[in-house]
């Protein structure tokens, strides 16, 4: 090992704290070799966890698959947020999957819109 070379932890991350509709929101974005992990929390835990991926086809435009893998399965705006983010990742040129955790106090479209914008602003893709 070259002892003079600085060691860089292999997972890059961004973390930010902001206010969304009066609720303190922590956002953490981590980049692994094969996935992005985005944690958004207002309730002190990860909450509902989604998995979003791009399915590429040679002949047609890519399609996206978003599914809730842990937590509330009846909140459509959470899926919409995941869908927005995976498409943004895809447009940035990355094919990596997204693991998105949303621990939010409210699931209104305005909140999810602000969450999506904040994640995009602090993205690692």
């Amino acid at each position, binding site marked *: 090992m070259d002892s003079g070379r600085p060691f860089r*932890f292999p*997972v*890059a991350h961004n973390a930010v704290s902001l206010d969304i509709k009066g609720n*303190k929101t922590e956002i953490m974005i981590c980049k692994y070799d*094969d996935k992005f992990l985005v944690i958004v929390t207002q309730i002190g835990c990860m909450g509902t966890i989604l998995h979003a991926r791009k399915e590429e086809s040679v002949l047609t435009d890519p399609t996206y698959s978003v599914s809730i893998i*842990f937590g509330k399965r009846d909140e459509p705006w959470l899926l919409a947020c995941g869908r927005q983010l995976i498409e943004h990742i895809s447009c940035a040129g990355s094919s990596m999957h997204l693991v998105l955790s949303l621990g939010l106090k409210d699931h209104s479209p305005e909140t999810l819109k602000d969450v999506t914008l904040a994640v995009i602003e602090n993205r690692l893709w």
Partner: protein
Amino acid sequence: MVNYEIAEVCGLHKIQNASHTKAKPPPLVDLISKILENQAVDGDVQITCFTEDLHDVTLHFQIIRLAKQIFVWIGCNTAKFGHLYAAAITRPNDQVAVTSILGGTSDNTGSGIARRLVLKTRLNIIVACNIPKDSPMLEATAERKLAEKLRSLGYVRPKPGGKSPDQAGF
């Protein structure tokens, strides 16, 4: 003498840079521990990343502490995300429940680590782990290092009306 620098991390929060000199570890224990950064975003969230070099394997650990839950990632040589598990103590009998969230349905490596971490620490834990299956020594080493770190960071909860983490053989 081993010189190393704590690397910068991109982010909007405070960045820490430091350099340390460290005496060569005793030859019997060829284990070099590098604490890369320990950053507090604010009082509710803390992210800790560190790496352990073993003889032929490098283990990376990332601990994200939220107010009521802890996310842990364990990387073996690579930074692949691995399989994802959730574990917690459930009522009424204080049993530990583990579930696979992403991948890993035929592989118990991460679920075993998650379960034993909750047993030792009584925390609500989400674990992502890419340790290959059928590596019990590696699994045990990773679990031990992680549990030590969680205790040193003060995240471990004492058992109700029972032993402290020190007395519990942890």
